[in-house]
């Protein structure tokens, strides 16, 4: 390479070298700056990682406590409301059950009222018998049954009214004999273990025997042999009706019999009086 001979050339070369040096210097400074920035960012990264690790160890700190408390309050409130809801639900069920009970009670009372009302609505013996039959068919649901009255002279129970079975089909029963006679003598209700819907019946061995009683004095018996097809079992209302029948049907029967006899005697006496006064 040729040496610059002229002073202008030497000066130009020096100025270009100076420029290169400046560029290199700026490059070095920039590199230094980058290194510092890198250092700073690495430090920041380490800091953040440190905070993240701490945050993972205890997720809520400081101002988040307020939120945590609020969440706990809301959770408590939710539990309280759920419990309240369950209580109200249970109360509703209780009300529904009580409503059904009251409905059933209403039904029972209406049945008992009607039975009692009808039994005492007449003094005609035949009508009283008809009403007892109607009650046993319609309110209890019996298909085949009879009303037997006690003849105190012969101590025999004889059928005076029947439903679904001929009156002659039920033989006279002596007091104390067989299912009917025993129920009448003891004055206690008889219920067979099995409810009969099909098959032949035994006229002296009914499924149910209800003695008709005035206080402890038995005047007759209702003997039930068969229930209606749809009547599957006796209900508490039936037992109430049996109790009602035992007392009210007995007094209604007794009163109507006395009334019929007194009417007959009255007309006989009136006949005599008319004969005597003519």
């Amino acid at each position, binding site marked *: 390479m040729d040496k610059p001979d002229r002073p202008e050339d030497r000066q130009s070369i020096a100025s270009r070298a100076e420029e290169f040096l400046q560029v290199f210097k700026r490059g070095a400074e920039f590199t230094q700056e980058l290194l510092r920035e890198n250092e700073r960012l690495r430090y920041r990264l380490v800091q953040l990682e440190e905070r993240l690790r701490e945050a993972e160890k205890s997720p809520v700190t400081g101002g988040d406590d307020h939120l945590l408390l609020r969440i706990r309050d809301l959770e408590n409130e939710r539990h309280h409301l759920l419990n309240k809801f369950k209580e109200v639900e249970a109360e509703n069920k209780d009300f529904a059950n009580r409503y059904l009970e009251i*409905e059933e009670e*209403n*039904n029972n009372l*209406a*049945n008992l*009222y*009607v*039975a009692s*009302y*009808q039994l005492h*609505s007449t003094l005609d013996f035949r009508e009283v018998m008809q*009403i007892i039959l*109607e*009650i046993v*068919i*319609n*309110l*209890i*649901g019996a*298909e085949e049954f009879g009303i037997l009255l006690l003849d105190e002279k012969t101590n025999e129970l004889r059928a005076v009214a029947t439903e679904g079975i001929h009156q002659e089909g039920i033989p006279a029963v002596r007091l104390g004999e067989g299912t009917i006679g025993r129920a009448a003598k003891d004055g206690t209700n008889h219920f067979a273990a099995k409810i009969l819907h099909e098959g032949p019946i035994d006229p002296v061995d009914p499924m149910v025997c209800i003695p008709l009683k005035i206080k402890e004095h038995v005047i007759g018996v209702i003997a039930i042999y068969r229930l*209606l*097809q*749809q*009547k599957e079992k006796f209900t508490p209302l039936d037992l109430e009706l049996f109790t009602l029948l035992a007392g009210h049907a007995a007094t209604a029967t007794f009163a109507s019999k006395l009334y019929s006899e007194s009417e007959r005697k009255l007309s006989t006496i009136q006949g005599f009086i008319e004969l005597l006064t003519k």
Partner: protein
Amino acid sequence: MAYKVLIVEDSATMRQLIGFALKRIQGVQITEAQDGMDGLKKISSDKFDLALIDINMPLLDGLKLVKLIRSDPRCKDIPIAMITTEGAREDRERALQLGANEYLTKPIQQVEVARVARTLLGIG
């Protein structure tokens, strides 16, 4: 609103009991008939919103009465509920076939009678 209901039933006990059940419905006016013929006479001479009819009755049974009602243009559309001791399926089917809308068996439940009456009267 008034609802005219006819009870055709030969048993006074049952008429009174059905009447009790119907009194649960506001505005019900009850007319009673003691047998099928009486029922036919009353249903032909007045306009009813509902008839509750027994099956086993003297003079004219409930099934024949339903048949006559359904063939009479004056009253053929009246809703009818049978209330009877006959619990066999074929009895129920026969009654419904003849034109009864509902079929209840004895012994009755007051709530059930009131429910059926309400439905047939179109009040829920």
